[in-house]
């Protein structure tokens, strides 16, 4: 397992995505799959950056676990306010332009891009696990 801990702010998004790319290459994933994983991680982190620490100053930890045969699990941990993103309702994909809200797609995207998503709260920590 390899992990990185970063301040929970947008300026550190690139570092997080670069870390993931390196781990994904080590695990033998190909280019398009790596982009899909980066996209999923960006969406998870965007929520953490925006909502986890209303007073700012928090950190986020990203753990990568190679699962063998080109699979990789990612865990995103923050100690912000409890947030179960899986409890959010999916957007209405059939809605016409006027009825499509601006935003609200991030969670749906990472749910669709990963093969399994789990949320748990352990003590003061939100843990979101994604399997690719």
């Amino acid at each position, binding site marked *: 397992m390899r992990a990185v801990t970063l301040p929970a702010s947008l300026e550190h998004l690139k570092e997080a995505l670069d870390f993931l790319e390196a781990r994904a290459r080590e695990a033998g994933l190909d280019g398009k799959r790596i982009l*899909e994983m*980066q*996209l999923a991680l960006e*969406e998870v982190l*965007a929520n953490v950056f925006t909502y986890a620490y209303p007073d700012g100053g928090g950190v986020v930890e990203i753990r990568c676990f190679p699962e063998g045969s080109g699979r990789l699990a990612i865990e995103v941990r923050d100690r912000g306010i409890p947030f179960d993103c899986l409890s959010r309702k999916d957007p209405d*994909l059939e809605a016409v*332009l006027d009825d*499509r809200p601006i935003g609200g797609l*991030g969670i749906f*995207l990472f749910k669709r891009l990963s093969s399994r998503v789990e949320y748990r709260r352990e003590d003061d920590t939100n843990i979101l696990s994604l399997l690719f």
Partner: protein
Amino acid sequence: MEITKSKEGKGLVISVKGRLDAVTSPSFDKEMEETLAEGETALVVDFEHLDYISSAGLRSILAVTKQLKARDGRIVLASLKDIVREVFEISGFNKIIPIYASREEAVSNL
């Protein structure tokens, strides 16, 4: 991310190169705001050199689409790479914004 604009036919072609994500979408939004302020109402967004888009980029595209609709304008997209097309399909945005295989086709369908 790099943005270049060129007048083609009756529209403005906006080529976006690189990544359209949470970091770069604010500067894309700013470019679009300026473009609309200049009175452009027929836009082709050429994604031939766009390597990556996240929900922040989708949000930007949806916002400009809504603004153009409000002023009887039109926006179409061209030349999406596989990963970008996949994001448009998952989000259902391919049903609300016309997507063409090439820039030429997009311009002629404005």
